[in-house]
């Protein structure tokens, strides 16, 4: 049987396992992309967020067969970009990170939002991050961080 062919963080790869397997599990166990966190396996928490062809998905709710031919980006790939540098700086400056578990998903949700809407309002930021739960920060610092990244990273998105 043919493998599932896809691109992970810019590199072509093939997965020989089952098409029913969760993208989340395969990313963590097979490819050691441990930035992708498992919080709920129900699409409720956003900790497993990844970009597939530039669109935000919860990788717990994606079967491997659905990524055939697609480009998957996790934090391991996104962290090499200038956009990540802007987000990292902004998150750090306002102490938007505490335990860090939600942050890879939060940052990819911010990237998905800013790539569609480079100058979001506060409400739009809250909507864009509404699928990403954080138990530490109370969200305001994260919202401020994304707002600052959008301003200071002007032109990156």
């Amino acid at each position, binding site marked *: 049987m043919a*493998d599932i062919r896809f691109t992970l963080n810019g590199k072509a790869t093939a997965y020989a396992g089952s*098409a*029913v397997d969760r993208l989340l599990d395969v990313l963590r166990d097979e490819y050691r992309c441990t930035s992708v966190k498992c919080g709920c396996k129900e*699409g409720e928490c*956003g900790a497993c967020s990844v970009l597939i062809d530039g*669109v935000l998905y919860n990788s717990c709710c*994606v*079967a491997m067969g659905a990524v055939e*031919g697609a480009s998957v980006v996790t934090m391991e790939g996104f962290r090499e970009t200038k956009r990540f540098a802007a987000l990292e700086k902004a998150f750090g400056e306002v102490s938007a990170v505490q335990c860090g578990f939600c942050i890879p998903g939060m940052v990819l949700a911010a990237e998905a939002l800013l790539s569609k809407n480079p100058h979001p309002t506060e409400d739009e930021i809250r909507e864009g991050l509404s699928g990403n739960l954080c138990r530490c920060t109370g969200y305001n610092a994260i919202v401020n961080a994304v707002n600052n990244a959008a301003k200071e990273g002007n032109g990156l998105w």
Partner: protein
Amino acid sequence: MVNGYVAASLQEALELRAAHNVVPYAGGTDLMVENRPGVAYLFLNKVPELKRITVDDESIRIGAAVTFTEAIASPDVPQLMKEAVSRIAAPAIRNAGTFGGNLGNGSAKADSVLIEFVADAKLRLVSLRGERTVDVDKFYLGRKKLDLGNDELIAEILLPKQGLEQYYYEKVGGRNALAISRVSFAGVFAAEDGKITNVAAAFGAVADTVLRFKDIEAMLLGKTLDEAKALKADYLRAYAERMVLTRGRVSAEYRKNVCMNLLGDFLTKFGV
């Protein structure tokens, strides 16, 4: 591919559906949570015929693999449907979740299905044997029971082009984002020459299927607003008697109170 088939066209999808014991997979958001053991998926997320939103003389046709995010961005999708699907979960789920999946999952909580009930939507079902069009309320045979053959796929949802402009929609959930409906309600109203021509009301998440009672709606059809006002108490009583609600995450009594309040508010909004 192990335990899966990727279809590149509708014809290929129908051939695979007929030849293998497969579960149609569009967005995966319900299937992956359910995580059925020993299953094989038929991946429909790349079938172009199922990814389109088109408009013909009578209908807005939404392909079964169109995602909620795509529908919200479409100029052709009625505002009522946009409002309902924009309240589903959060962006990442709306990026994946589809109209066909919302139907095929069979839940009475499905937010797009509520709108299809109140809009008298039709579904186009296809197989290698041919195709048929069914009314959405006939498609639901009972709790999680659908009028869909083992070789059939949901191809399109057909919404009427006109008549959904004046609507009332409320989703009652436990929180703002990521909320599963505890009670959802959609009403559509229309009047011509001072007489009511449509007063459709649908209730979601409160029974085995979405509820709609066309015989009670008929009480107000053809009536003026004043005549309808005089009948309002009888109309509400008829609903209260008919609605037998199930207990879910909240009590049946609570659900019924909310349903009746929303129904009354719907009529008030349109002057009845």
